[in-house]
């Protein structure tokens, strides 16, 4: 019994240590050298902005500390804030150099290269001749797709599952002394070994523009892409939170490239180009036994006589069949019920 109590105490202490390690207030202080949380820790810190929108300035410390930017100091991004209390802060420029040193090059870290990739992609604001594209304002900027993502670690000890593997951490601690470093490094690496968002989440993100009828019309797109994806088995499975199912990026980004390098389906280098697209479905992780024909499946088929005329009339046949069968039968059912409930009504003289 006493041993059991001891065990409880040890387990309790372990929990406390784990909690402390996970939420890591020490690190919070490290990132918050300017003591910004003195004010921003209050959940009610908010106001109505000049454009009439509600703006919340509360920073949830524990959430922030589990995000990919946990190590970046507030002043690292909000460079215009010099004094406290401060004037309304400017929008953050995601391309600035921050104080973090990128370990492989030992240079100051910046997202500038990502912006360069983006400028050559289908989402670029300028065309090949560096002239602004039509409706360039519709093209996404960093914050249109990204928030401050949370770590989404994977456990790799004996089996793969979500979360941090305590078993694996023991092996890290042999060499690395700082738990703060171990946790961050573990999170940093394993979060990137899978997608940071679920397929449903990614589809919803793309849908913010690609399902907007105005954007679809302005850019002459043939489909509300996320809507039509949602009508496929992939999309339906994604809506049931299946993590294994392909999302927009799995098909539209060339293998081994970043989403920021996504190309138009009209670009011969793109995986979605007519003669390249067979490689999308037949890759080793999806349908390796399939022939290139599988890629002719119209993922973005819509019930529209202009976009997919054959499929449209095929569906019309089934709608007619359904209506043509059920409506008369329902009519008979209704009349039958009426006849049974009011058997003595007389319309004509009968024998």
């Amino acid at each position, binding site marked *: 019994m006493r041993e059991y109590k001891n065990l409880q105490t040890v387990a309790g202490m372990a929990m406390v240590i784990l909690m402390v390690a996970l939420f890591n207030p020490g690190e919070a202080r490290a990132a918050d050298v300017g003591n910004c949380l003195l004010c921003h820790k209050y959940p009610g810190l908010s106001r109505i902005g000049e454009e009439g929108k509600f703006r919340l300035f509360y920073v949830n410390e524990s959430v922030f500390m589990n995000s990919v930017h946990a190590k970046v100091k507030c002043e690292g991004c909000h460079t215009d804030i010099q004094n406290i209390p401060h004037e309304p802060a400017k929008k953050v420029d995601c391309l600035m150099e921050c104080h973090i040193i990128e370990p492989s090059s030992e240079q100051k870290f910046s997202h500038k290269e990502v912006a360069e990739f983006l400028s050559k992609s289908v989402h670029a604001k300028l065309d090949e001749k560096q002239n602004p594209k039509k409706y360039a304002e519709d093209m996404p900027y960093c914050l249109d797709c990204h928030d401050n993502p949370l770590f989404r670690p994977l456990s790799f000890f004996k089996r793969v599952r979500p979360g941090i593997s305590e078993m694996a951490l023991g092996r890290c601690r042999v060499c690395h002394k700082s738990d703060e470093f171990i946790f961050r490094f573990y999170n940093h690496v394993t979060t990137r070994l899978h997608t940071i968002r679920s397929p449903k989440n990614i589809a919803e993100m793309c849908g913010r523009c690609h399902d907007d009828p105005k954007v679809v019309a302005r850019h002459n797109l043939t489909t509300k892409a996320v809507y039509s994806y949602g009508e496929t088995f992939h999309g339906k499975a994604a*809506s049931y939170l*299946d993590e294994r199912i392909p999302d927009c990026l799995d098909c539209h980004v060339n293998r081994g490239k970043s989403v920021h390098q996504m190309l138009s389906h009209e670009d011969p280098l793109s995986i979605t180009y007519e003669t390249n697209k067979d490689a999308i479905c037949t890759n080793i992780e999806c349908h390796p036994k399939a022939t290139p024909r599988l890629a002719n*499946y119209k993922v973005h088929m819509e019930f529209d006589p202009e976009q997919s005329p054959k*499929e449209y009339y095929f569906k019309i046949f*089934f709608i007619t069949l*359904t209506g043509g069968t059920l409506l008369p*039968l329902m009519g*008979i059912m209704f009349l039958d019920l009426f006849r*049974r409930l009011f058997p003595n009504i*007389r319309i004509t003289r009968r024998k």
Partner: protein
Amino acid sequence: MEAYRIIKVKKGEKYFFRSTVNQRLQHIILATCVIVLVLTGMPLKFHDAFWAPYLYSLFGGIKVAPIIHKTAGCILMLLFVYHIIYLSCNIYIGQIAPLRKKKELSIGKLLKLLATQPLIPNPKDLKDIVQLFKYLLFLTDQKPQGDEFTWKNKFDYWAPFWGVPVLGISGLIMWNKEFATRLLPGEIINYALIAHSDEALLAALFLFIWHWYNVHFKTSVFPMGTVFITGYLSEKLMVEDHYEYYVKIMKKAGLEHEILPPNESYEREPAEGKMVREESDATSADENFKTMNPRKGESRND
């Protein structure tokens, strides 16, 4: 004497033979598979509906429900194949073989024989439908006097007969997309999805509204018909739906004096003291039934 066995008397009421144990088992497998398929399929078709995630979770969600769906689909397809074999054997053994024995079989006779199978629609059905509309619109009090299988029974039989292959083949294409697109263009999956999803909705609505109304929910049967379990239909319902056949059976059984008038089944108590021989074994009744009417032996859906 043997002909009496198609009428069973229990607690003074007559029950009329409708289907063998084999046929009832086929129907129960069909019904169970269809219900499971609808419950595991509709949350995918209507994945945006508020109820869909709850229903899908009940079947294990996206990881398990598709396995259940495919299993039920396979059972249903096997049942369909079995039913075709069962039907062919019955027609061959019961009807074609005797003709061959007598050396009377010709192509004309064979076609006529196939066209006059009890579940094949015939002019009498059209007459019954016209009569039904007259009755439903209060133009007459005379209900259609249905034969052994009414046009509703035939509708109920041929609907799954068309539906199962459509759903089965389209389902197999989507399941084995790699193999299917080796033989056919990739667009076939689009067509398969449309056919599978729309035909399934039609089948589900047809069965759960029309079929269930006619066999369970109409006021004379409510709350539940039992013929799919017992294989026997009560005299009341026999008079209501199959009057022509009822009269035929009663006459054959020598019970002319007990025949109830049409449309009056609700108003009259069953005749007392004129019991026919009690028969509790449905399968032996089926044997006798075949003797009496050698062309029977098909699956029925009512």
